[in-house]
């Protein structure tokens, strides 16, 4: 089932980049991993898909990408129901690309250039056009210097970015990323988020699956929270200030929300604090602490 949270109102249907309606999914002989899930991803809306390990997060990503066919329900892609046949999937894959958590599952050529060009080549593009697309996405992600490096000599963070480049070379409208910051050190996370911001400027809708609530708080506008095979959708403030819901999802409250609520300070729906500086400002400008605390 899907629950709407708080005051959030669904975006206009014309603005929906990708959606699922009444989706059941799972493996034969096992209970459903997703149980009648509906959710929608607005075009250009930073959407975080939050859930604990084993919650069904990755299954939802795979359903959205067309790889996992739901046993019931539909994927809505580009305003129409996705047909899981060759033609339907081929069209869908040019709209929606999934980047897996482990880049090694996604890199299967020996060097960066041929790996990034794999998708465009499969689209039947000529060598010149493939090369142009490869150069473009490498440039966009700031990894042009890696173009001629062997994949197995790259660091983990570099391989993560090459995997994203491979998906981007398909020029998708929606990019689904499974734990893109996992395993990266703080600078690596910053670089990844900067790269995603560049993509958004170029019109790509980014969906980021994570179990890092602090990251989701700082980054997302909309949240899909996967709890026990069910999805709760709402805007980031409604979703991540609901302590009971987060606890049921085996997640904790973002520290910024936790701290402000312990200090008795409100979390504004607009202009929520997203950095340590924002929090410091919110605390500094508050009324003096009551003496009885």
């Amino acid at each position, binding site marked *: 089932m899907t629950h709407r949270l708080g005051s959030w109102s669904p975006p206009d249907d014309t603005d929906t980049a990708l959606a699922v309606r009444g989706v059941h999914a799972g493996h034969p*002989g096992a209970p459903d991993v997703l149980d009648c899930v509906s959710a929608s991803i607005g075009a250009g809306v930073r959407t975080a898909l939050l859930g604990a390990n084993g919650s069904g997060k990755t299954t939802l990503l*795979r359903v959205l*990408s*067309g*790889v996992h066919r739901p046993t019931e329900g539909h994927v809505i892609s580009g305003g129409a129901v996705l047909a899981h046949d*060759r033609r339907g*999937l*081929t069209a869908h*894959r*040019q709209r929606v*690309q*999934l980047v*897996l958590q*482990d880049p*090694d*599952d*996604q890199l*299967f*050529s020996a060097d960066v250039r041929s790996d990034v060009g*794999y*998708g465009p*080549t*499969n*689209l*039947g593009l000529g060598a010149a056009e493939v090369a142009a697309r490869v150069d473009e996405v490498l440039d966009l992600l700031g990894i042009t210097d890696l173009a001629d490096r062997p994949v*197995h000599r790259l660091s983990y963070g570099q391989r993560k970015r090459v995997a994203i480049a*491979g*998906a981007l070379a*398909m020029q998708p409208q929606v990019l689904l990323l499974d734990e893109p910051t996992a395993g990266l050190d703080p600078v690596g996370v910053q670089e990844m988020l900067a790269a995603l911001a560049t993509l958004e400027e170029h019109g790509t809708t980014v969906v980021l699956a994570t179990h890092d609530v602090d990251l989701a708080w700082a980054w997302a506008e909309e949240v899909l929270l996967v709890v026990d095979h069910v999805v709760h959708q709402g805007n980031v403030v409604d979703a991540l200030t609901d302590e009971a819901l987060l606890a049921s999802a085996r997640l904790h409250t973002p520290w910024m929300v936790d701290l402000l609520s312990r200090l008795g300070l409100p979390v504004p729906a607009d202009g929520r604090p997203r950095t340590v500086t924002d929090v410091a400002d919110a605390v500094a400008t508050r009324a003096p602490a009551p003496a009885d605390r």
Partner: protein
Amino acid sequence: MQLDDAAWSSPWRRRSVAEKALLCLGLLLVAATTGSPVVAAVVGLLVTGLALLTAMVPPGLWWRVLLGPAVFVAVGAVTVALDLGAATGSDVWRLGPVGMTTSGVETALLVSLRALAATSAMLLLAATTPMVEVLSALRRVGVPGPVVDVAAVMYRMIFGLLEAMAAIREAQAGRLGYASGHAARRSLGQLVAAVMVRAWTRAARLEDGLAGRGGVEAVPMVPARPVSLPFALAAVVLVTVTGAASVLVAL
């Protein structure tokens, strides 16, 4: 790999491999050597009953895994039964040069029942005995340690490689790697190569990771489990009775 899951969660899992082998391999040998379709059918039904009612193998799984061998048996049996050439006196059916004779059909029927019964007996062992138990039993009966070790490492690595293969294949499909025949062949070549590279890197990392645990010594094996006398006796009775029936029918 549903058989593997079934074996790990089987109520018979903690039974001694010896007593299960006595039952399953005993019935397997009776089924595989009998000249009587009736005895084969009886063994087949007996094994199926034991599997579904006492060993609690999930019925859906049982029929699903039997499907593969059943297809081979069907195709093989039809080929056995076919007779090419002119009409004979004992034709069951004939269309032009292709026909079936009574003896051919009888042979095909016997072979089919024998194969299905023997396969079922093997499945009963497979669905109740995790591979680690089989391997340690093989070591106990004298298969050289290093050979069993290699098999144990294979078993340990298979699952990770299958997962990697499925993930890589999905990633390729996501980038239209199977959208045309040409792309599909190229993608399969890359898939096999990528899985092989993965196998090598996994092996190298495992070797490295084990250095701190005392290096790569023999793979530890699960200990033998005590034999249940009632189970073993029941197995002996079932195998003896069906075996005797098979011999009597032949006489």
